[in-house]
């Protein structure tokens, strides 16, 4: 699960393969975050984990770790 999640984040945020992803980072502070990245994030969660995340719920999540925990508990 964790590995799938990390791969999904690399895809959604278009993170270079050589770059490390610190799960403690607030994803909205990631250099690649913008309104289009939000679309990619929503799409990849639906694609990989069959989860459509409610807007209200997404607002309460801050770090990549929060996202991982959210989908793990689904």
């Amino acid at each position, binding site marked *: 699960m964790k590995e799938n999640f990390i791969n999904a984040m690399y895809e959604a945020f278009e993170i270079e393969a050589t770059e490390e992803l610190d799960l403690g980072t607030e994803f909205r502070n990631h250099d690649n975050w913008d309104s*289009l990245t*939000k*679309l990619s994030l*929503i799409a990849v969660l639906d*694609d990989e984990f069959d989860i*459509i995340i409610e807007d209200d719920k997404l607002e309460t999540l801050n770090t990549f770790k929060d996202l991982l925990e959210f989908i793990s508990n689904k």
Partner: protein
Amino acid sequence: MPKITYNNIGITAISAAIPKNTIKNLEYTNHFDENVVKEIVDKTGIKERRFAPDHLTSSDLCYHAAEKLILDNAIDKTEIDVLIFVSQTPDYRMPATSIILQDRLGLSKDTAAFDVSLGCSGFVYGLTMAYNYANLSGIKKVLLLDGETRSRIYHPKDRKTAFLFGDGGIACLIEKKDSFLPSFFSLNSDGSKQNLIKVDAGGYRNPSSINTMKEKVVDIHGNVRTDEHGYMNGGDVFNFLLREIPKDIKQVLDFSDTNINDIDYFLFHQANKFMNDYLSKKMKLDKDKVPQSISKYGNTSSVSIPLTIVDQLKGLLKKKNLLLCGFGVGMSWASAVINVEECKVSDIIEVE
């Protein structure tokens, strides 16, 4: 969520008119950094759009499309009993633009004419109204016009919307014939999501004033617009569509007892390439069955589905089963499975 069936009604001809004025997205504004613009263009897939110059309205585009349709198909104007104009950029607040078009097109005073104010779902909704009238005894032909100058709604300094929208107008003819196979529609609305895509001012809730015309910074990214300009919360719109659209398409397929493999073409509202590709991928559709025109015209709201038909399917609409799906501002969304016996597609015309 009404599910509707029509028998023996069909689209027999379609045409489109676009402004000649072409905007290349990469060169559109200098309000944003080159890299930002390139990323938006890459992700949305919108390379060019057509912008109507000041003197041209959506009804002008529809007028030219309608004249082309009438000429190409030798339509007897006296047989057009109903004229429907779908648009959210009408000529005036009153009277309805459809009535002005009745006169301008030289249609008889016996013509029923009215406007429909819907956005991206508007063509599919408009079709149901056209089919409804065509279904009545006493009606020979229905002329459905659908035009938008969406370029005027959004502010060039709001990067969430500045690079997406374009203008166009279409005309199509709906008639009854015994040999036409049935068509099926699903219509939907969710007004609780009205704030996802909206123009706040200029209507009667928030009338135009000096204040509504003031430019202001609207978010932490420094985007600028006035209350008279449209805004769109793209992420939340996408989220909403992911939830509703595949479901609605499945419902209309089930309801019409159509196997997804028997659909010849899937015509989605052209919002952006990301959305088109996502829907295609999710529904595992063959790329050749999903015509796109987004890269050339951008998002033309209700016009995007018929404009894609005219741009991509000329000469191909003989005994075809089409799935249409329009979705957007409202939120309002509509899907249809329509059987086309033969639909004549005119060449697109450019208007100066």
